[in-house]
């Protein structure tokens, strides 16, 4: 029944295929209403933030964008990054029983989960854009290609963070806790709900160290043609972080493959 020798690539592809089917099932049926929450979480967040807009905007306006679409693009962009990172933290642990098969490597569940999250979040984005258009809210990106590119870029940053954090979380037990704690402040300093343009320049300077800001601001600029980005947004800086994370993550997964499997 077993075929002749397969190439490494064929084996890996079979593993990704099998793992994808199994992760899709786990992700969408694990808890009741898993689908429901995927949609309701961003909607609820938008509703709450829209209700509280007075607190964040204090009467001012965002230059070049309506508040609701501005909020939706930021939230979804941040969630894309966050879900990649959070879902991958436990990916190795949840699948450790499967490392009994020599075909399966610890990096496989991480890659598959990130791919799956990317697909799910992209579907949610499309639903939001469609719903916005139907409700008469200007949600269609003014530059669709640029929007796709910046969406993909944010996914790549999430993938890099996920690769690095998933390996470190197994090697150093505290990392998972630190990442979980760090996500909340990261949400507030990434300009998702609080426009960074409202902050003094000396604060902006430090917040721009965070690569997520660059990704989210660029994503917004591709949605709203007259949007005024925070000064100093630079996708080159963003890709330096992203590629470093991806490289570091893959290096950790290669160097410590044996320890990640054994745990």
């Amino acid at each position, binding site marked *: *029944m077993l075929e002749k020798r397969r190439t490494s690539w064929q*084996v890996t592809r079979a593993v990704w295929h099998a793992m994808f*089917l199994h992760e899709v099932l786990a992700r969408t049926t694990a808890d009741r209403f898993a689908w429901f929450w995927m949609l309701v979480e961003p909607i609820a967040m938008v509703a709450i933030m829209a209700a509280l807009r007075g607190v964040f905007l204090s009467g001012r306006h965002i230059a070049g964008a309506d508040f609701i679409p501005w909020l939706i693009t930021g939230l979804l962009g941040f969630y894309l990054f966050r879900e990649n990172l959070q879902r991958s933290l436990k990916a190795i642990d949840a699948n450790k029983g*499967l490392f009994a*098969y020599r075909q399966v490597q610890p990096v496989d569940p991480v890659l598959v989960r990130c791919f799956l999250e990317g697909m799910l979040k992209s579907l949610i984005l499309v639903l939001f854009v469609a719903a916005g258009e139907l409700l008469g809210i200007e949600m269609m990106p003014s530059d669709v290609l640029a929007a796709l590119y910046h969406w993909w870029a944010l996914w790549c940053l999430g993938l890099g963070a996920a690769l690095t954090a998933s390996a470190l979380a197994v090697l150093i037990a505290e990392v998972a806790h630190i990442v979980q704690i760090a996500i909340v402040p990261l949400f507030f300093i990434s300009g998702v709900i609080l426009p960074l343009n409202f902050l003094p320049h000396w604060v902006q300077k430090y917040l721009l160290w965070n690569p997520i800001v660059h990704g989210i601001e660029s994503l917004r600029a591709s949605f709203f043609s007259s949007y005024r980005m925070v000064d100093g947004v630079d996708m080159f800086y963003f890709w330096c972080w992203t590629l470093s994370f991806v490289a570091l993550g893959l290096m950790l997964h290669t160097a410590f493959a044996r320890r990640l499997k054994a745990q």
Partner: protein
Amino acid sequence: MISINGLYKRYHNHHGSQWVLKDINLEIPTHVNIGLVGRNGAGKSTLLRLIGGMDTPDQGAIVRNCSVSWPIGLAGGFQGSMTGRQNVKFVTRIHNAENKLDEVIARVEEFAEIGAAFDDPVKTYSSGMRARLLFGLSLAFDFDVYLSDEATAVGDQIFRKKATRVFKERVGRSSLIMVSHAEAILRDLCQSGILLQGGKAFWFDDIKDALTAYHELNFG
């Protein structure tokens, strides 16, 4: 034939790193069943994991000129929150046998005899049920060599008899390398033996000689 050449293996931990296996050289034929004997911690499971490709040696090489199963043991092999059926599908897919999915599922279901539990999450299984499922799963693929790490230890009489019968039927087609402390099973199923002692491996053409040597070394 599985050839092991100059194999060294150790695990690093906070109290040093002693060699578990030191300079192992073996030519393991694939037409006989082999019992792996040795004391707890002698490196039996480690050797099995290395043969199965689950782990890599620190030095030396293992050449497998045949299809080898994964080490069928008490731990691992399943994703706990998925059902037995979903796990079987996963393993079938990674072995590139998706076109025979129904056939594999039918064979596993028939061998494991766990009934409706086949559709329950694996984490709810008893160790005997897990072992039966994992064993049945490996038998659904026609490997040349099967690696069993105490997989028969937790099964009941019926399961042991069944496993024994299957391997007797398969003599000549596929072989078994098994770790077990149940000497009756070793004598019954295996023809040859490997004794692991002090990091070294010793080959015996007859399993009885391996067991005798093991007794002499450890119990005077």
